[in-house]
């Protein structure tokens, strides 16, 4: 259901953010430091720093609505919308994977033209531990790269 390219990006050096809202429709944002697509290619688990998870989880438990925005440094971008399933603390394996992902993110930022003086602190400053793993089911996938076609429903 989730297109190959989006799966690739979710596992790759992407800037990911999660959007939720509360009972009064007030939006909230949190940075996501890693993601994993399940074999059914519909369920996604994302990782956020525990320190940022309180409001996020409160919203998710209240209404379950999730929007996940992801973008490469080259501005290629997508958005997933779906419903919350569950959450739990991250485990060691996941944390190790995030470390590697952070390194890939830095390489990608440098390649895209970010000066090292900015790319390094920006990427290496991403805190991922202790972390929370949040699982949701994706229902819609949109193209979000700026320019023509932005907003197109992909699946």
């Amino acid at each position, binding site marked *: 259901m989730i297109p190959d390219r989006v799966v690739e990006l979710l596992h790759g050096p992407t800037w990911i953010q999660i959007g*939720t809202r509360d009972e009064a429709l007030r939006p909230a*944002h949190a*940075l996501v430091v890693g993601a994993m697509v399940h074999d059914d290619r519909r369920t996604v688990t994302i990782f956020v720093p525990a320190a940022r998870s309180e409001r996020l989880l409160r919203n998710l438990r209240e209404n379950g609505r999730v929007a996940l925005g992801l973008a490469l440094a080259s501005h290629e971008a997508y958005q997933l919308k779906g419903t919350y399933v569950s959450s739990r603390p991250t485990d060691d394996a996941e944390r190790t994977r995030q470390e590697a992902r952070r390194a890939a993110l830095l390489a990608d930022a440098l390649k895209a033209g970010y000066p090292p003086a900015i790319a390094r602190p920006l990427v290496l400053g991403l805190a991922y531990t202790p972390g929370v793993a949040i699982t949701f089911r994706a229902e819609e996938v949109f193209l979000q790269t700026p320019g023509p076609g932005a907003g197109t429903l992909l699946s």
Partner: protein
Amino acid sequence: MGILPDEIKPAMQGVIPSHVVTCSRDGTPNASAISQVYYVDPDHVALSHQFFNKTKRNIEENPRAAVWVISPETFEAWDLELEFVRSDTSGPIFDVMEMQIEAIASMVGMKGIFKLRAADIFRVIAVTKAVGERIPLAEIPGPR
């Protein structure tokens, strides 16, 4: 009044992209990246509107937005809670944003093609430093 601290200004220069989350009237959030959040005054910011998109559509239904910005100097991040005030298609704020876009567009061969449609002005309801999602700059290993 005046809730935006001076130290947030570098975060509003568009050096590092920002994020914005909005929500439609039917309760579906929308999360996207934006190239720059513009500082207007200690109580207001502006987003540039070039292509018509879901963010804009949501704002028209539900004026609340959550914006995340990060400083390219201190690498501290802030969460802003915003409320849409109005959309400018002229005036001093629009002019400042339009001039920047014109200058850059002319430098990449897109003179006249890429235009600013509107400057969307938001009131800042709350601003908080995003604690816990970043390792403090001093603790980041390696050369700078």
